[in-house]
């Protein structure tokens, strides 16, 4: 568990870096690092498929999309984030972490004991046979995304 906790702390730090970094490019890289850490956590939990997806799609594809957007919008004015936001951040975070810890400890006592039956079959069986409806949903959401991007980048020859 210690190793897990180290990973989780690193994940939080990478996310915080993604938010607080001044340069957007650095933010995007910190986000990719957070993805990598999440992927290692997934592997540790015995979820290689989710881990591979996380690394190839989130750390890879989404980071590329972010970089592309940053490059395309580079000529904009320099937006200065307010300084106080960064100064009070640790304070807020410590307060939140305390509350979080207390709430979770409170909840821990209230969670009833759960018996868990070990799963049979393979990942492929579960995804293709048990959750086939999700695949329809995936097709639908991909269609939605593709049409959304096509619509937003269409040529505006007819628009007034």
């Amino acid at each position: 568990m210690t190793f897990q906790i180290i990973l989780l702390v690193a994940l939080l730090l990478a996310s915080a870096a993604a938010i607080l970094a001044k340069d957007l490019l650095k933010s995007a890289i910190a986000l990719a690092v957070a993805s990598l850490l999440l992927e290692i956590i997934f592997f540790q939990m015995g979820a290689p498929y989710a881990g591979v997806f996380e690394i190839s799609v989130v750390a890879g594809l989404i980071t590329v999309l972010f970089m592309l957007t940053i490059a395309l919008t580079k000529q904009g004015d320099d937006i200065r984030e307010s300084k106080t936001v960064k100064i009070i951040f640790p304070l807020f975070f410590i307060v939140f972490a305390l509350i979080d810890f207390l709430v979770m400890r409170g909840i821990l006592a209230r969670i009833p004991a759960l018996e868990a039956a070990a799963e049979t079959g393979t990942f492929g069986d579960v995804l293709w046979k048990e959750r086939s409806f999700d695949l329809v949903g995936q097709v639908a959401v991909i269609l939605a995304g593709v049409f959304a991007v096509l619509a937003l980048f269409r040529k505006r020859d007819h628009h007034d």
Partner: protein
Amino acid sequence: MINEWVVYLLFAAGMFFLGLYCLLTMRNLIKLFIGIEIIGKGVSLVLLSTGWARRSIYLAQSLVVTYIVIEVSLVATALAVIINLYRANQSLDIRKLTRLKG
């Protein structure tokens, strides 16, 4: 198992807080969306660790895979909106988005 599940939930809540903090305080549109991404990572951590705690890791993995697919299509749409906004306003500053008030 439950103890460890709660540890994961604790950190996932931390990610949620980071994302919300970013949404509430930052001014750059891309930064705001990075906040959303961090919330998304927290959510996938919750999903997978829940499945892990229930010892149904395959099911949890298939949920996370679906979730990632949804996230990609959401990211593509959102970034397309952001690029268009930049073209319209020549700026990524949230403070310049003030056309709609009242």
